[in-house]
């Protein structure tokens, strides 16, 4: 039987081109912030789990090794995880596993990405594609997302205008987030007027490249109860993966994220959640592109399948809506340092604790869900966190 695991602290920092710092310095900042938040010392941490998606961004292979000293990892068991963009949530799940299995009582989870070090993030992304069948054609991130977004809008009859509303919401929400790289006061028309990267995806549907790190500290039940009277528990975790051969998937359509529905079902089954739209109070949903927030809201059951357009039209996911999504600004507004998208989990924690500052939503938050996505439309990782 798995042990219960609680979140007992988070380490935040501003997402930005952090050109004055090394990876090690960036990581030290969030690790220290997390220790302060949890009222813990370096010596209390039993083990460290790292997450970083693509080493080529920072140009240091096996970059986890540069972060050991700065993460409280010295002389301790450490491990690195990488599942493309979903590293952002699969890494805290790996940390969860460390505590749930009984091996460790306090685990530091560190996610980072330093994307400003290279001359072209797009050139780095181009090295992730299959070398024989895909890369020679020159697939890039804009078209990769254009292919998927077109299939999605086509399948469910959704619109560019609905996508634009997600951008307005998230970049607007980021105005209240002190850690955000790109807060903007926008209008739907302004988003629609921004240049196309690949139809229907426009510049203002896209999250910015950035640098940053996040830390969370996970604790076993007896340690968590010593640290706090009312712990925030990890109630459910789930992961799903689909084939790298995206040209011939079983469901014949890139528009539906079967692997994300699978990951969500695992997490909800574990958490005992039957009706997520009614039982989830708050969500931080992976939104590297606006349509991804919409797809993920559906896969996470926050709205009916194909209902993400109506969800944003009806204002349900607004900060003051009945099921707020990304009141932090999400990746759109806060910035998208791939692995450090673990920020989604941090903001769930802060909302539940009532410590989200100006991003705090005007409702009680007892149960929250977050997810992350990555690979060739392949991975999804989901976490449900909440109070008893």
């Amino acid at each position, binding site marked *: 039987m798995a042990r219960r695991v609680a979140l007992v602290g988070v380490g935040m920092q*501003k997402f930005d081109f952090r*050109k*004055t710092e090394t990876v090690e310095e960036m990581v030290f900042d969030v690790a220290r912030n997390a220790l302060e938040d949890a009222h813990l010392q370096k010596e209390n941490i039993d083990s460290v789990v790292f997450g970083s998606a693509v080493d080529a961004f920072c140009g240091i292979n096996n970059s986890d090794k540069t972060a050991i000293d700065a993460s409280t990892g010295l002389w301790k068991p450490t491990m690195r995880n990488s599942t493309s963009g979903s590293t952002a949530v699969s890494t805290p799940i790996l940390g969860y596993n460390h505590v749930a299995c009984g091996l460790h009582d306090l685990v530091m989870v560190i996610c980072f990405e330093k994307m400003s070090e290279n001359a072209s993030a797009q050139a780095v992304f181009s090295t992730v594609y299959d*070398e*024989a069948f895909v890369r020679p054609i020159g697939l890039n991130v804009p*078209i990769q997302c254009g292919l998927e977004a077109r299939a999605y809008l086509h399948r469910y009859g959704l619109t560019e205008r609905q996508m634009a509303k997600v951008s307005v919401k998230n970049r607007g929400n980021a105005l209240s987030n002190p850690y955000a790289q790109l807060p903007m006061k926008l209008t739907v028309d302004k988003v629609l007027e921004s240049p196309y*990267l*690949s139809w229907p995806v426009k510049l203002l549907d896209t999250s910015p490249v950035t640098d940053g790190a996040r830390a969370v500290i996970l604790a076993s039940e007896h340690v968590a109860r010593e640290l706090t009277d009312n712990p925030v528990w990890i109630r459910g975790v789930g992961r799903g993966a689909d084939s790298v051969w995206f*040209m*011939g998937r079983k469901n014949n359509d890139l528009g539906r994220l079967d692997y994300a529905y699978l990951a969500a079902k695992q997490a909800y089954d574990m958490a005992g959640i039957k009706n997520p739209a009614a039982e989830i109070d708050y969500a931080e949903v992976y939104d590297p592109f606006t349509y991804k927030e919409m797809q993920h809201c559906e896969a996470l059951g926050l709205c009916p399948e194909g209902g993400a357009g109506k969800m944003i039209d009806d204002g349900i996911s607004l900060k003051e809506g009945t099921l707020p999504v990304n009141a932090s600004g999400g990746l759109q507004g806060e910035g998208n340092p791939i692995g450090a998208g673990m920020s989604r989990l941090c903001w769930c924690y802060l909302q539940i604790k009532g410590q989200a500052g100006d991003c705090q939503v005007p409702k009680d938050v007892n149960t929250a869900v977050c997810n992350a996505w990555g690979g060739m439309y392949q991975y999804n990782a989901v976490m449900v966190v909440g109070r008893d």
Partner: protein
Amino acid sequence: MKLKKPEMTINGEIQISYNWSPGKAGERFFRDLRDHMKIMGTRCRKCSRVLVPPRIFCEECFTDDMEWVEVEPKGTLATFGDCYFSTDGKRLEKPWILGIVRLNGSNGGLIHYIGEATAEELKIGMPMEIVFKEQREGNILDILYFRPVKE
């Protein structure tokens, strides 16, 4: 600590060349493409699915009981994407287009350029066909592009 512009950067470059193996299935696929202008897939003898790009095993049945079959150089457009950036990131006047085409007689498909059509003329689900290169070299660019099947 306030972030400011650094006074220093340490400049470097990583340049590594690779010689990728196309693999057992890939080698056969690219040889038949080069020598016979044929699109080959592998059929799982257990579940009968035909995989394109071909693989030496079926991921569903987890068996290598596979046979080679030829598939039609035709199929349907599953989705497509236009792009106003060149592969090295330069802004383009006229977009280029990539599409995923599900090949007839298979459970798979290929991603490739779309030619002889503008994005406005394309529709998800429309029939497409492969245009082959004349001088073929044994790689995916032996396919020039997909084009809509002429009525």
